[in-house]
């Protein structure tokens, strides 16, 4: 398989924000129960940007640089093996240069520090990201103003920002589940990741935003290892 085929199978192809939001600067939210695969999906989204030869900043709250890096290495390896990607080693080295990780210790996220860091990175010509993924953001304890600040930053830097949030078991209610209830207006796209009972797939339910024409309609089925779209799910 070639690089371009991988890009095709990425679920992000099918996630569009609301029609009035500018594609390049939007806020997306991935919700799921603990352990379902939110980080994996964020990494998959980041990989998509990287494969399109664009740059990514991965912000991780509560996880070390080494562990975060390992996510990328492992996922890329799984995908490369599963899809028999040609020149996997070279592609890996090339795209990883376009990714920067910024980590914060548990509960120590600071918007001011993040802005300062990004500013340094851009100024020093180290990286100019078009996508940012934020993993481990504490939606329960952080003030809404921080999210608003991030949205402003996204607009100013022309950046897509994707967040992950843990939701509890009863996520079957309509609308955006807790702890993000009441924050829908800040996000252009909100998706819910759930394991499909009695199968080995994951399904991606779009709560806010629209899907482009896809074979599975609003429920995308994903492979739990690589988080890529699977057509053969039952």
């Amino acid at each position, binding site marked *: 398989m070639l690089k371009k085929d991988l890009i095709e199978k990425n679920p992000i192809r099918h996630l569009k924000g609301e029609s009035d939001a500018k594609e390049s600067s939007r806020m997306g939210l991935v919700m799921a129960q603990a352990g379902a695969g939110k980080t994996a999906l964020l990494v998959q989204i980041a990989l998509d940007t990287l494969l399109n030869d664009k740059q990514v900043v*991965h912000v991780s709250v509560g996880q*070390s*640089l080494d562990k*975060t*890096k390992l996510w990328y290495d492992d996922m890329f390896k799984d995908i490369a093996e599963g899809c028999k990607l040609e020149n996997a080693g070279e592609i890996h080295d090339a795209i*990883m*240069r376009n990714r*920067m*990780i*910024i*980590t*914060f*210790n548990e509960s*120590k996220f*600071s918007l001011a*520090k993040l802005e*300062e*860091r990004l*500013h*340094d*990175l851009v*100024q*020093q*010509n*180290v*990286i100019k990201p078009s996508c940012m993924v934020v993993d481990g953001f504490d939606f329960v304890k952080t003030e809404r103003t921080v999210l608003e600040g991030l949205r402003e930053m996204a607009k100013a830097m022309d950046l897509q920002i994707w967040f992950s949030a843990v939701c509890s078991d009863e996520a079957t209610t309509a609308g955006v589940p807790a702890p993000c209830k009441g924050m829908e207006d800040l996000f252009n796209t909100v998706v819910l990741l759930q394991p499909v009972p009695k199968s080995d797939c994951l399904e991606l339910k779009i709560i806010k935003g629209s899907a482009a024409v896809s074979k599975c309609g609003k429920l995308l089925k994903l492979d739990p290892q690589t988080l890529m779209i699977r057509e053969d799910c039952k």
Partner: protein
Amino acid sequence: MRDITKVRNIGISAHIDSGKTTLTERILFYTQRIHAIHEVRGKDGVGAKMDSMELERERGITICSAATYCDWKDHAINIIDTPGHVDFTIEVERALRVLDGAVLILCSVGGVQSQSITVNRQMTRYRVPRVAFINKCDRTGANPDRVIKQLREKLALNAVPIQVPMGLEGDMQGLIDLVKMQAVYFDGENGDVIRIEEIPAQYKEDCDIKREEMLDAVSMFSDELMEAVLEGTPTEEMIMAAIRTGTLSMEFTPVMMGTAYKNKGVQLLLDAVVSYLPCPTDVDNFALDLDHEEAEVKVSNNSSDPLLALAFKLEDGRYGQLTYVRTYQGTLKKGDSIVNVRTGKKAKVGRLVRMHSDDMEEIDEAGSGDIVALFGIDCASGDTFTSGSDYNFSMTSMHVPAPVISLSITPVDNKAQDNMSKALNRFTKEDPTFKTFVDPETMETIISGMGELHLDVYVERMKREYKAEVTVGAPQVAYRETITQKAEFNYTHKKQTGGSGQFGRVAGFIEPMEDGEYEFVDKIVGGSVPREYIPSCDKGFQKCLDKGALVGAHVTGVRCTITDGASHAVDSSDIAFQLAAIGGFKEAYGKAKPMIMEPIMKVAAEGPSEFQGSIMGSLNQRRGIIIGTNEEDAYTVIEAEVPLSEMFGYSTDLRSLTQGKAEFTMEFAAYRQVPKSVAEELIAKALKNKKQ
């Protein structure tokens, strides 16, 4: 044999200015002194004669031993000398492995400085519980509260004072113990007479507040204490037990204060070492099962189990060659036969000693968790000893990382040459990652190691400890070569011009190998190459690995397969086939698209946030790839992968960029292909050297 719960193996860690030397000397003084005082009084009732001036001059108290033993309140304390330089050398790792707990010394004026940050990070990395001692409280500008704040912010430690000083600077009278709620004074010429009194009225309020803060923090570690605090009935035992639990779990750091120089607080610190730092069974230690791919196995700490001991330091002491050993399991007895797991050789335990500050005590046996020294054992630092050859465990990985950098050193005269040889002999025994050899082409002595700093330290030690003046050449990075595609060969080695000749033909192919350095595959059928010469082919190939054709670097990651060949009844020999293999390899090498690889280091640079931009820029300029950053409370750590060849002199650069406020550490990460421009430069240089 002593009770293992009463053993404390500790290290004392500090940055240069905090008074480590004086404190250590004082500890040895009090532990030996009190002992001596008891003895003197007990034996003939004569009082202590030595005054403090004499004591200062007494050379007997030494801190040069790798591990010094002392007694305090029925506990055995081994003070392990922690290396001054915290770079990623094996020596540091070994010291941290051998100690169970540590005392972190800080200056009450200087507070937490960059070295303390590095030391602390190492200790966290090796999971070492610690207590803090704020020293020099008699200095002008002493501010323990500020230091405690720094401990929390810069080192992210849950640092809580368990004492309150009575007066500071020139006015320091003593300390208030918040656990026992009593004032402690240190009387006598050397502060060795402890006087307990009621807390003076002027400190009462502050003490009550500080005690409440302490109880708040400490009761998190004990439900019993928490309840008792709510009811107003916490006991000393409960508080101490909770402090111990917190300290051992590394979620709490008790802070003490004092002034070693003015003899205040040292005894209380010793009490804390006994009460709050771990004994060997409080810490999990792991051995590696060599029969199961170095799988980790917890040591039992049981003195009746098979012996497991680690030789962590070799010393040319006053008494001859000593090997310091820490036992993790079993008992070391005089006269026992022990096996060196690395070499497989047996050794007999001759003299077994314990090093005191001023003399040596001969002992008959040492139980689990103890630290002792052996005479007359020939081994290398890091070797593991067990009781028998069927007990195949090692305390350290048998894998010794290959050096990544080398330097040529030239002695200035004959005397320096002798001293240098002695020094090199000693260093290589102590540190398996430090290697030395003579370059056959240039006849220069080359030393190689894990980093620029690693080698600098040894050159410095050579000058200071062995008085060997040497001039140092430019550092050489250890490049590697490898091939990127399969290539075939079919080579005949023939010398049949009359008389005894040589003949051998080998055919096969070489191909790149992902995991591993080298592999030889024999696919000969029908005896086209006689069985007895197949090992010769292997030998020949291996000879080619030393110097690759591109730049003369070591070749790695190659699999050599022989599929066919030919021999001559008379003229074929071991040498003939070796040369045939060498010829075959050289023939195929050029066709196999060889490439040059360079060592890439994982560099972690940390410093105040305001310098992040310039630090990132500086790493970028050195062909570094920034992996990411980690935001700590007061500083940021930047991680990058940078080629070793670009890192020379970086410490000076970093210092000037950041006004000396940033530091970096680096360790080997991987070998990666060099960029085209660098490869061209290296090849051109190699050609030039060849011509000369």
